[in-house]
């Protein structure tokens, strides 16, 4: 007679019947806190996992990020996590997302890797970012490698939002172009800025046609995106240092490597606290990775430092003509055109930093 209990293996333990359903973030609160996680504040969907009507697991989706994944202490073991991640992943896939991310504690990185996600970047002992479809990062790197394949000199890089493209941006670009053999300008692709990405990129391209050694390219999901640096766009400074480190880890490991970047140019940042923290990290982390961090003083028009937020303030106050002095012709003529009307209306209503 076969002795059932003689076989010791986690796989043969009784598979509990666990039911899942959508819950409110509040309900998940206690479970998240007891797992050492903070309660996210920007979720689109939260799932609860129940055993005998008791909440034993939870996970949430915020845009393209899976986060807030926690399992009750008494039920730990990768099976429930796998169940949670499967559920959230299926949801993302069915919503048409080809790729999505998990943002998690550094200590959990391996667990999610074993579920089939691949690491995009990490901050030791703090956090890790993983993606579902590893072909995306591969293709990103290949694309960048192809772009930079002809350029054998000292490649430079600037990452900019350009919301909108100002004389200050142009100044920074011109300086960087002069100090690089070839310059790559990455435009932040995440569309959380009032000027849509396509427009921002277009203005930069047109406004820099006179420079021969530059390429203006989309930043993609791996450069200051909602995945790598969500708080960049948030109202308060949430975990800025952590995200700055994460974004830069990704920049160094993937973007800079694939584009063979030797210098990254940044504009001095007097106004925005998030950007100034980010710049501080650039100056510390990049040199250690063999990339020079070059900080360029802001262009002044008279006494005033030129900044995109200043321009947006003027627009908000209905003083577009006053903004002209800060803008390259290509941007100004866009602002006074019909096409810009809806954007101008939006600016008048908004109050975000970027």
């Amino acid at each position, binding site marked *: 007679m076969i002795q*059932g209990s003689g076989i010791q293996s986690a796989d043969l333990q009784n598979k509990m019947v666990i039911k899942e359903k959508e819950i409110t973030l509040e309900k998940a609160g206690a479970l998240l806190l007891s797992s050492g996680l903070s309660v996210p504040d920007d979720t689109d969907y939260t799932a609860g996992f129940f055993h005998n009507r008791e909440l034993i697991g939870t996970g949430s989706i915020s845009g393209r990020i899976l986060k807030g994944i926690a399992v009750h202490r008494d039920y730990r073991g990768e099976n429930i996590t796998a169940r949670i991640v499967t559920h959230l992943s299926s949801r993302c896939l069915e919503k048409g997302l080809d790729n999505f991310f998990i943002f998690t504690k550094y200590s959990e990185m391996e667990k999610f890797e074993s579920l089939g996600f691949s690491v995009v970047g990490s901050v030791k002992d703090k956090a890790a970012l993983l993606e579902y479809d590893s072909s995306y990062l591969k293709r990103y790197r290949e694309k960048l490698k192809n772009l930079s394949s002809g350029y054998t000199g000292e490649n430079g890089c600037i990452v900019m939002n350009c919301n909108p493209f100002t004389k200050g941006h142009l100044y920074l670009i011109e300086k960087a172009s002069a100090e690089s053999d070839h310059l790559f300008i990455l435009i932040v692709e995440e569309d959380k800025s009032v000027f849509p990405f396509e427009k921002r990129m277009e203005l930069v391209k047109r406004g820099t046609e006179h420079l021969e050694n530059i390429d203006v390219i989309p930043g993609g999901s791996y450069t200051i995106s909602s995945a790598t640096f969500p708080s960049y766009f948030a109202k308060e400074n949430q975990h800025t240092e952590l995200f700055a480190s994460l974004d830069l880890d990704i920049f160094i490991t993937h973007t800079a490597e694939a584009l063979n970047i030797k210098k990254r140019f940044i504009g001095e940042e007097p106004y925005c606290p998030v950007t100034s923290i980010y710049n501080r990290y650039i100056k510390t982390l990049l040199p250690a990775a063999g990339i020079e961090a070059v900080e360029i003083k802001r262009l002044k028009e008279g006494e005033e430092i030129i900044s995109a937020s200043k321009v947006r303030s003027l627009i908000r106050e209905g003083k577009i003509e006053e903004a002209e002095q800060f803008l390259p012709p290509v941007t100004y003529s866009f602002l006074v055109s019909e096409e810009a009307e809806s954007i101008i209306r939006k600016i008048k209503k908004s109050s975000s930093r970027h």
Partner: protein
Amino acid sequence: MIRRSMLFIPGNSPSMLMNSTVFGSDSIIFDLEDAVSENQKDAARILVRNTLSTFDFSGYEVCVRINSTASPFWKKDLKEILKYRVDSIVLPKAESAEDIGMLSSELSGLEEEYSISKKINIIPILESALGIENSFQIASAGERIDALFLGAEDLTADISARRTKKGDEIFYSRSRVVIAAKAASVDAIDTPFTDTNDLESLERDTLFAKDLGFSGKAVISPRHIDTVNNTFLPSEEEIEYAREVLEAIAEGERQGKGAVSLNGEMIDAPVVNRARRIIQLAGGKGIK
């Protein structure tokens, strides 16, 4: 049919399904109902079907708990899983002979379509007040019925009773199910014990069920199988006595005697049948 233990295996869990042949229960119930969420019913039936076609289940009674006849899933469940050998269909929420009739027709149709020669059994689960009330009607609703199964979790919810380990609240239902089953000459299977870790209480619960007349018990954890199997095994004395009975009968036949006695008592038919059953139970499980 020897059904001391019937193990539930969740139908949508590959890791459990692929190990289903090593646990050592007498019967395996592949569960397409409560263990599977609504949006995975399709996935589970295909997975179970593939499991049935891949593994060797000789020595086991292969059962499938399909979804209830009130659900939109049951016919598709049958159509898929009967493509491979299934011995019994476990029917949840059975409440009347009509439920059995509906299932039976569907089975007949599929037996013909798939050229299945051996008739498929039905094991109804009585898990509501109405089910318990109609237990004899259900038990005698046709040749396919081979056992009655008591489902205490849903039953206690239905009657607003509090489910306890001791089981006072299901005492009447247990007896009722045993009586109805025996009156219809079918097996009675007791409800599973739900605390996977409390083996001591499991043993008490199982012994009590056996004493009431149940011939087997459902289990939801492989850890419960040994206790349940051993509890429903005849004891050494019972086996010894059964052997003596059968030897006495054989001896009587050799001597041409009509009536046989053992230890001064006449052995009549029920005693002989019971002895045969005990030897079958003992022998069937390799015990000498």
